């Protein structure tokens, strides 16, 4: 595939030579329980078996701020703008120290969530979209973005069968949508879905029906990635 389309969403990172980024960046988005991690694990196996070196990144995995972010979330004491900037710092650290060097070395980088989840969360919480767009102007546009869309009712079932509980943040409890966690989860995930659909119009990612069996989703993802690697 020709690299001349490769670009940052905004001004990007100073002093990066885009044409040197020979690898591929593939982002998988979706709520907890959407099958994101399962699909990424399967993709890694498949890619590596076929001789492609891979690297994985994800939210809250930076050396710089991951433990501080974790702490802040436990205490639930950060206000909205602060949390948003904290996540952006976590993202930027991984972008500069993992994603860009790996792409330069020709790796396939699999992002277990990218900036869209961060933006959708903030949009749902009423943050200014122009502010977010400027903030994430540092981000590199991926070669492919797959959003695993699963009905909120199905997400509830999957989360409960896995953990027997719902996550505070994935239920959007900080928003005060409902005191009932089940209700809050469904309301929040519904709002997240519409935020994703809105972002999809701007960022043009692929929406994948995640309500289907694991195998058929993997099949679809492989087909699209195979085409991407073949430069089609």
């Amino acid at each position, binding site marked *: 595939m020709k690299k001349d389309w490769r670009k940052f969403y*905004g*001004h990007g*990172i*100073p*002093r990066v030579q885009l044409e040197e980024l020979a690898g591929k960046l593939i982002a998988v988005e979706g709520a907890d329980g959407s099958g994101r991690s399962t699909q990424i694990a399967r993709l890694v196996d498949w890619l590596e078996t076929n001789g492609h070196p891979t690297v994985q990144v994800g939210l809250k995995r930076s*050396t*710089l*701020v991951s433990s*501080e972010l974790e*702490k*802040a979330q436990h205490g639930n*004491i*950060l*206000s*909205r*703008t*602060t949390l*948003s*900037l*904290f996540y*952006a*710092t976590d993202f*930027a*650290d991984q972008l*500069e*120290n993992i994603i860009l060097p790996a792409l330069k070395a020709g790796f396939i980088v699999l992002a277990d969530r990218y900036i869209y989840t961060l933006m959708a969360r903030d949009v749902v919480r009423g943050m200014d979209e122009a*502010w977010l767009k*400027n*903030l994430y*102007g*540092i981000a590199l546009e991926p070669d492919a973005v797959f959003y695993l869309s699963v009905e909120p009712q199905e997400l509830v079932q999957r989360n409960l069968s896995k953990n027997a509980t719902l996550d505070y943040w994935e239920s959007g409890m900080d928003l005060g949508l409902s005191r009932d966690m089940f209700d809050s989860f469904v309301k929040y995930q519904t709002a997240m879905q519409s935020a994703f659909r809105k972002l999809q119009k701007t960022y043009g990612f692929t929406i994948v029906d995640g309500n289907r069996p694991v195998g058929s989703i993997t099949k679809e993802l492989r087909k699209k990635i195979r085409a991407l690697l073949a430069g089609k």
Partner: protein
Amino acid sequence: MKTFSELNFPGRLIAVEGLDGSGKSTQIYLLKRWLEAEGIKVYFSEWNSSELVKSATSKGKKRELLTPTTFSLIHATDFADRYERHLLPLLRAGYIVLCDRYVFTAFARDVVRGCPPEWVRGLYNFAAQPDLTMFFKADLEVSLNRILEGRPKLKFFEAGMDLRLSNDPYESFRIFQGRILEQYMAMSGEFNFVVMDANQHVEKQQVLVRKLVSEKINLAKFKRRSPLPLPPAIPPAELKTKEQEEDLAAV
């Protein structure tokens, strides 16, 4: 950018800006002492001091993990935390808030480090403009001497060593601070800086600072109904900054 007064906040925000070693921290400390003695509701906030973000910032600095982008973002996170949790509620409650450095520090430093000016300004566009911003302008040599008096050597980021301007920390510091000063001067008119001559004697400057503040703000309106006892003296931040404490702790 509107001021807090224009936004109808009952409180007022006063910021000091300047290069490291310009003496601004001493000035704002003396201002705080005076306002406290006058029985005024006053709160002091320092750049890069939010408890939550501090461990990440010091880790980043110690291990030299920071890039211009993450340096900028982590300071914005720190500012947002102090702004949303302290400054805004206090300004709503009618306090006079004193800030040792405000968003202009980021506008100057981050841009010198290579971040685009529009991006940096965009990050901070949730913040209102101070009701009074005093810029302490000292000769570069004066600043350099003040910095070096208090401590044996320049710190990596303070000297702008991450920019690879020079292998000599002193030369690097000189170039880096010179560029920051240029940035400050370029925005001085836009943000209504009151430029103070920081080469003058400390006490003379303080007389001017107090005069300026009492002309600009009707201080009588900010008095506590029942005055609190005068808080104990805390040595000026510039003599022993947070960062130095971290450095000492790291040894």
